[in-house]
């Protein structure tokens, strides 16, 4: 039995906990405003708002309902477009009309929901935030310029919004209906998600952003173990020189963490290259690890921080040792990741994450790479960690290259040798994301981008090294 609030309606359902929120709202509740576009989180036509407690505060985030398993709605507020409709259009809906932000209309509801999520998010107020809110929504008709104008109108409209407890203001200004005022109290009456015992016929699931893309037909009929809302897996803490991250921490929670922002000031620049806002709201870092995609962005990211994973069995290994072959992990079926940890980078270290894909945002990398280098005062590399995706059967930690670099200065000669070693460490294949020749060249370029971030001029190297 799953219990939650759908718009203004209290729901108790015995639908399979692995079935999707999209199918539930459309085909069980016949709320047809939420559309089926791609069923893989890549278009946003099915976007809904999900209200849940974060640090005891009710927070709404936009998520793609096609990937969200029903188990993850326990005790939450799911809002579809029908749940924000009022006798007159909301300011978000009005802005989309005033700027001609809708043509065929099929994607429109997704934009309306994401922008409504933006105005409800008390930490967001700028135009950039508004655009970020709709970075997972694809429109094939408008060319987005009109929608940008709608985003601009809305970011201006919310300048008067109170910085906390804004529900009243949002209701007064017709962004959301009156019933939202009572949702928090109503939600508190619903029992918290119950963690079922782990058994072999129950499917453990995090945000669903990988499982529901690849194994949709399996998941939808399964009973699931909700890892996503397990409170004991949702923390980011610093213990002396170590950062500890619960397995169910999402990419969004990671980038929003002040602890992480202090260590990696460019974090939001990097995560902007990783999927989209609604997916980051759902995707867990540990999920990215165990999916073992050769281009998993967060895996590549964490490899360069030389992260460790701790299983629920108590076993602890370095992330770089988790991968044994294509989709092969050093992990038993019963083992689940409990925690991810990494040592605070030594003062003076420089971290960099690079990713190139056909489309810069909301795309899967052709090649991605991360690098953490610590140079001493003489310019000698004291420690080096380097990772690359899309160049082998699993996310690759470039052991040989990193070992070679350690103890050396970043001279042109050393860089060239490092590139040669690196090229021998990888084995890219040609696929829809590029030819193997391209991926090799791109790996070199991204490595040089890491070097450039160290303040080394790389232009001359480009001329010296022929492709």
């Amino acid at each position, binding site marked *: 039995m799953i219990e939650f609030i759908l718009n203004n309606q209290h729901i108790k359902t015995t639908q399979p906990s692995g079935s999707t929120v999209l199918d539930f709202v459309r085909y069980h509740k016949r709320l047809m*405003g939420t*559309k089926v*576009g791609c069923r*893989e989180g890549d278009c946003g036509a099915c976007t809904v708002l999900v209200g849940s407690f974060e640090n005891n505060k009710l927070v709404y985030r936009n998520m793609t309902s096609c990937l969200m398993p029903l188990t993850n709605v326990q005790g939450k507020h799911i809002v579809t477009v029908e749940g924000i409709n009022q006798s007159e259009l909301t300011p978000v809906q009005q802005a989309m009309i005033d700027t*001609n932000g809708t043509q065929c*209309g099929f994607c429109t*509801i997704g934009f309306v929901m994401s922008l409504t999520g933006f105005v409800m998010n008390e930490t967001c107020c700028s135009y950039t935030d508004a655009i970020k809110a709709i970075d997972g929504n694809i429109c094939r008709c408008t060319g*987005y310029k009109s929608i940008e104008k709608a985003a601009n109108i809305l970011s201006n409209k919310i300048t008067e919004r109170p910085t906390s407890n804004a529900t009243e203001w949002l209701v007064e200004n017709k962004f959301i209906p009156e019933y939202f005022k009572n949702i928090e109290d109503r939600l508190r009456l619903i029992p918290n998600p119950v963690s079922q015992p782990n058994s072999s016929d129950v499917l453990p699931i995090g945000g669903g952003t990988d499982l529901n893309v690849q194994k949709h037909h399996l998941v939808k009929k399964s009973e699931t173990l909700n890892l996503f809302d397990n409170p004991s897996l949702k923390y980011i803490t610093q213990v002396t020189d170590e950062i500890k991250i619960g397995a169910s921490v999402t990419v969004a929670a990671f980038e929003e963490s002040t602890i992480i922002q202090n260590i990696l000031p460019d974090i939001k620049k990097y995560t902007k290259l990783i999927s989209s806002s609604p997916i980051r709201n759902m995707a867990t870092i540990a999920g990215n690890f165990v999916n073992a995609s050769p281009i998993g962005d967060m895996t590549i990211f964490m490899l360069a921080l030389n992260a460790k994973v701790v299983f629920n069995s108590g076993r602890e290994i370095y992330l770089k040792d988790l991968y044994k072959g294509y989709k092969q992990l050093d992990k038993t079926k019963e083992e689940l990741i409990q925690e991810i940890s990494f040592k605070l980078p030594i003062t003076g270290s420089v971290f960099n994450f690079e990713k190139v894909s056909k489309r810069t945002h909301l795309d899967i990398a052709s090649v991605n790479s991360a690098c953490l280098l610590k140079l001493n005062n003489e310019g000698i590399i004291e420690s080096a960690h380097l990772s690359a995706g899309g160049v082998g059967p699993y996310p690759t930690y470039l052991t040989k290259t990193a070992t070679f670099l350690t103890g050396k200065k970043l001279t042109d000669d050393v860089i060239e040798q490092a590139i040669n070693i690196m090229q021998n460490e990888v084995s890219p294949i040609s696929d829809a994301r590029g030819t193997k020749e391209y991926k090799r060249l791109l790996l070199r370029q991204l490595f040089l*981008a890491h070097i450039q971030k160290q303040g080394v001029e790389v232009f001359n190297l480009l001329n010296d090294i022929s492709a």
Partner: protein
Amino acid sequence: MSTKKTISDSKDIKSFTGPDFYNHVAGKSIYVDDIPAMEGMLFVKVFDSVIAHGKILSLDYTAAEQLEGVVKIFSAKDITGENQIGGIIPDEPLLADGEVHFCGQPVLLIAAETEDAAEEAYHKIKVEYDPLPVITNPREAFAKGKLLTSSRKFQLGDTTAAFKNCTYVFEGTTEVNGQEHLYLETQGAYAYPTEHNSVRVYSSTQGPTQVQKTVARVLGIGMNQVEVDVARLGGGFGGKEDQASAYAAMAALVAYVLKKPAKCILNRMEDMRMTGKRNPYSSDFKIGLDKELKILAYEVTHYQNGGAAADLSPAILERTLFHSTNSYNIPNVLATAHSCKTNLPPNTAFRGFGGPQGMYVMECAIDYVAKQLGVTADIIQRKNLLKDGDEFSYGQIVSACEAESCWDKLEKEVSIEKIKEEINAFNKENKLIKKGYSLMPICFGISFTNTMLNQARALVHVYLDGSIGVSTGGVEMGQGLNAKMMQVAAKEFGVSLIRIKVESTNTSRVVNTSPSAASSTADLNGKAVQDACKQIQERLVPFIKQELSIGINDTIYFVQDILYVNGIATTHNWKQLIAIAYVKRINLSAKGHYATPVINFDKTTEKGHPFAYHVYGTALTKVTVDCLRGTYELDTVKIVHDAGASMNPAVDIGQCEGGLVQGIGWMTMEEVVYNENGKLLSNALSTYKIPDIYSVPNEIDIEFLKTEKDNLAILKSKAVGEPPLMYGIGAYFAIRNAVLAFNPNTNITYHAPITPEKVLMGLYSKK
């Protein structure tokens, strides 16, 4: 009854974008999959071929059919009528019969009570194939004599003689890839049986009559037994002009045979692998210029990748020839085109309909000349723009030309010379970031090139309470058609917009419709609406004059529902007078008809006057390329577009922006990838990327060249659906130019799209 004042009187009428939009933003608009399911509805799932070419040796679906919830599995032999869906040429079965010709070709239909049962059955079906050789490349198909239709040749002057007089002659080869439509709403239809052995079909189609015709043919019944209804599409872009018919026929077949409602909606991956896309082209060009850089001669041969069946490719091929010289005056032209049969899903219409592919080659030829001679392409482009009195290769004489006026207006605002200087200075300063720019003039002919299709009908009812219902043959797919139809009726009658409702497109109300395509929907259907309104007015005016004792020579008209006599408002209004008209038994309903005058085309000579008019424009594109990573950003696109007297600038700007971005997608990141076995690799949204909000140009600035010249457009407001797509071609050349600024010795070929891969390989390659 002159009603000139109504539009100018009402400012908001021009920014009225449509009655649908209030429902769109509230999620209340109904698409096919949103129609409430009737009791007993069956789900129809397509079982398709996994190989691109081969004989079907055996087909075993007994186990699948016996599964609980599976009602029946249909093969070719279960088709009650003809197993044929080919529109132009009858060369495409609905369900494969003995052989398959592309991956994704429908073989069987599963009808089941639930989606899960259909899915399970799908996995229980066993097929054995005997594979045959697979061809994916159009030149290979041509060499083996595999053509979908006879080749075409447009000829003007004598190129052979002209090349002898040229100072410069260059030759080259180009490749341009296809494009997935990626309408957000996938293909689908919902059908149920009605009385008298008939069916009603709700289809997401641009061509209701094409669906009706195909369903009737497949079922073996009359067109009068098939009612097709279309409320709206969640995007079409050409992909639902012809290809919606197959899925409608499948739903209808199941409904007709099993006497149950049936729904066939493709999921995204099915849609991507089963349906055709924009035709890829491989082309050879030869161009000759005099010493003043006037183009004297141009020869081009196009090898169109048609896919496994003709679909609309023969007509697309024709439009490629019509647009092979873009907006340039070239006195000697020889343009040849071959429609090549390959083992890919049958390629089809896509915004521009072969025109963009033809223009791309022309622009490559000019760019190539420019690079060889060390000038910028815009110098050659400007010198050769069309003027009134010039002749197109197909014999139509250029008139009301706006090629130079659009270019010059843009030039006046931005100064190409200054841009050139700025970019050169920037590129000198920056080693790893380079900028590039390009100009892209367009000229696009408006009318279906098949003259027959240039007709339309509309049904206008004035109800006795004064409200008005308008039905046309046009389909609303986001292009703002309903808004424009309402404007036309409001203007003709002189009533307020709220009186008017545009009905769904229904083949029982408006018959023998042409597809909503060729940018002509508003022109054709709008003129039919005008005709219907005029007929009603011709009955109303004498009646009102008699009823109110107004002199026979007095002028009367309505403005916002109020009756004016000789320019003076009266106390009489529309609602009140209609009520009386009904009592006095005036016919308040009319069917309008329109057939575009003037146009003609003779395919035996390949000469004529095929287009009602042309649309012109020029785009300037500026880009920045990151030469370390091979990525790019589009800084600015500035456009001067020939809109005529736009009747709805809000809608028309939306079409320009959307078309431009779609064209940019085609030229940059959208890469349709098939492997050598004809299997689609870019088969989902995770592997096929269309522009997102971050990848569109930072600035898009569209200005209309406003003209009041007489033309055949509805209210002189020129067609706008397709032409802006071709501005996107400018992005290709701007990016290419930035690559050349970094690496003048690059071996980069003329091969679109220019993906980050092509850019990076281009940046670090040598000739």
